[in-house]
């Protein structure tokens, strides 16, 4: 079989092949490994390919095909490199953790393995998940599979690029202010950030604990549903994980019920700076939904334009505190110094990259005495207003539809460019993250070969409705799944 035959596959299709003995898990893993070899020097989605162990695991599975297949049995999965994998390096895209190999699995990884999945490798990311371009990785950037001159988005850029190019059938990412949805939009795949607390964060390297959430990157909405069923649910090891049972597909309304949902469109998500083609594509989708007799209402989220500032204060403050643990003592890099203090300084100065240092300094400033009220407290108060906006809007509708990003995939950051411009890329993904709401990005079309992402936002724990509408839209739009050809450049 050839890898391109899997272009429109979802998990059930692979399972059918296993059952019919048309392919074994080992043959499947080998096809993905070949695809990685073909693609990696072009897109650099992986920081580590788990070749030997993945083959061993696949071989074991190949020898013992059960009658009843576990939900992810025999399927390779790519994991963002800030999620701990026992015995497999976990670097967070940072020199600080370059030689770190976790002695345990994150809860999500444990659950994937239990469901029969095979760890294919660890994917590239912005250092400590701080960025929207996968340019800040200490190990070199990832390139957009549709056009290598452009960024794949970030921080889960490696995960999104690997799924887009079919180097992996699906992947885990993490989303603090948009790090799953924005790269999914830039790579034309599905990116789901569930409700804060839906998925355990145990074993996920902390960036901003009140915002971090594991996310799922897939080629089909169907696979996001299966993955969510596997990884969600209560975890005694994470007290911020909601004590609820795992998500179940029975929570998804039937298609006829989907037509009764009311969809809100927040007017603040269509500002003058929005790229025209994105506005056009989203409006086309809204028209199609109207033709399907789904009611569309305009709503307002008046504090949207303040959300980004509030987010950068809160996220930097939490990051400065979380990253204090990298001191050269227990794990990670140590640079020897004359005494303890000197060792701290040398280790942190060499171990962290520029963007991380910037955010640590910003966060330390926002939390320091005399500035706490001015910045951190204000940031948290605005967060309350952003949450209240959503609560009010959800009194008038069941789901919201917005663009995922204000622009198409952009070119790498040029020196001297206003750093705030980069932050603006997160303007549509940050507010729902601050409110902890489930949000999903779905490809809704292409403009000159580049994908446009549409975002659906739901009420807390209403992933059922969210995924129901996503399935409905996916069917309605009937776009082919991406299969970029790894051309050197896309000038023709």
């Amino acid at each position: 079989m050839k890898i391109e035959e899997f272009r429109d596959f979802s998990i059930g299709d692979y399972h059918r092949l296993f059952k019919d003995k048309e392919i074994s898990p080992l043959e499947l893993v080998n096809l993905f490994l070949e695809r990685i070899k073909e693609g990696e020097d072009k897109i650099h989605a992986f920081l580590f390919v788990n070749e030997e162990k993945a083959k061993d695991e696949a071989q074991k599975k190949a020898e013992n095909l059960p009658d009843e297949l576990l939900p992810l049995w025999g399927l390779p999965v790519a994991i963002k490199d800030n999620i701990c994998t026992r015995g497999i390096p976990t670097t967070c895209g940072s020199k600080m953790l370059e030689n770190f190999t976790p002695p345990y699995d994150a809860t999500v990884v444990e659950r994937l393995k239990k469901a029969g999945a095979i760890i294919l490798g660890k994917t590239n990311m912005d250092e400590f998940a701080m960025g929207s371009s996968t340019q800040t990785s200490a190990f070199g950037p990832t390139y957009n599979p549709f056009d290598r001159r452009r960024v794949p988005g970030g921080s889960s850029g490696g995960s999104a690029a690997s799924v887009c190019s079919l180097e992996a059938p699906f992947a885990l990412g993490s989303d603090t202010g948009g790090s799953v949805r924005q790269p999914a939009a830039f790579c034309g795949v599905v990116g789901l950030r569930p409700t804060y607390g839906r998925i355990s964060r145990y074993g996920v390297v902390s960036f901003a604990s009140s915002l971090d959430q594991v996310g799922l990157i897939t080629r089909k909405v169907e696979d996001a549903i299966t993955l969510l069923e596997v990884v969600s649910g209560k975890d005694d090891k994470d007290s911020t994980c909601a004590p609820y049972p795992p998500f179940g597909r029975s929570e998804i309304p039937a298609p006829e019920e989907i037509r009764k949902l009311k969809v809100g469109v927040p007017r603040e998500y269509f500002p003058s700076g929005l790229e025209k083609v994105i506005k056009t594509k989203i409006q086309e989708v809204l028209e199609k939904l109207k033709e399907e007799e789904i009611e569309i209402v305009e709503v307002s989220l008046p504090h949207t334009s303040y959300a980004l500032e509030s987010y950068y204060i809160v996220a930097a403050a939490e990051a400065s505190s979380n990253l204090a643990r990298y001191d050269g003592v227990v794990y990670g890099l140590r640079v020897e110094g004359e005494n303890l203090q000197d060792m701290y300084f040398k280790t942190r100065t060499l171990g962290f990259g520029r963007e991380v240092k910037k955010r640590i300094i910003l966060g330390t400033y926002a939390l320091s005495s005399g500035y706490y009220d001015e910045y951190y407290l204000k940031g948290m108060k605005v967060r309350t207003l952003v949450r209240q906006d959503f609560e009010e809007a959800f009194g008038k509708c069941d789901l919201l539809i917005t663009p995922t990003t204000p622009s198409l995939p952009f070119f790498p950051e040029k020196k001297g460019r206003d750093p705030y411009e980069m932050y603006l890329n997160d303007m549509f993904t940050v507010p729902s993250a601050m409110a902890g709401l489930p949000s999903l990005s779905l490809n809704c079309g292409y403009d000159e070969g580049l994908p446009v992402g549409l975002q659906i936002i739901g009420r807390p724990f209403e992933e059922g409705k969210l995924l129901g509408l996503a399935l409905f839209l996916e069917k309605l739009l009937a776009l082919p799944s991406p299969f970029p050809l790894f051309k050197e450049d896309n000038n023709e």
Partner: protein
Amino acid sequence: MREVISLQELKRIAQVSKLELSEEELQGFFEDINNVVSRFEKLNDLDLQDISPTSHLSWSEPPFSSDEPRAGEGGEEVLKGAPQVANGYFVVPRVVDKEEKENEDRRV
């Protein structure tokens, strides 16, 4: 860009964060951080007096774990990731300077 944080203040914050910045880095951060922080002033447009802050999100009462001893994970494994260990302990460079130590001893 408006100067909200002075160069001196920035140096102090870097010290507190245990980061050494070269003169060139310091200048770059001075511009970048002031650029970002000056935009935070936009939040002053809002009347936040009676708004309670959101520090975290919780949808239900945080669960309690049972107060029973359990075997921890890792053990030996955990130490494998450490830069320096001896006899099952993490090793760090000298914490108390020699002179300080001598003074301490004299006082005793």
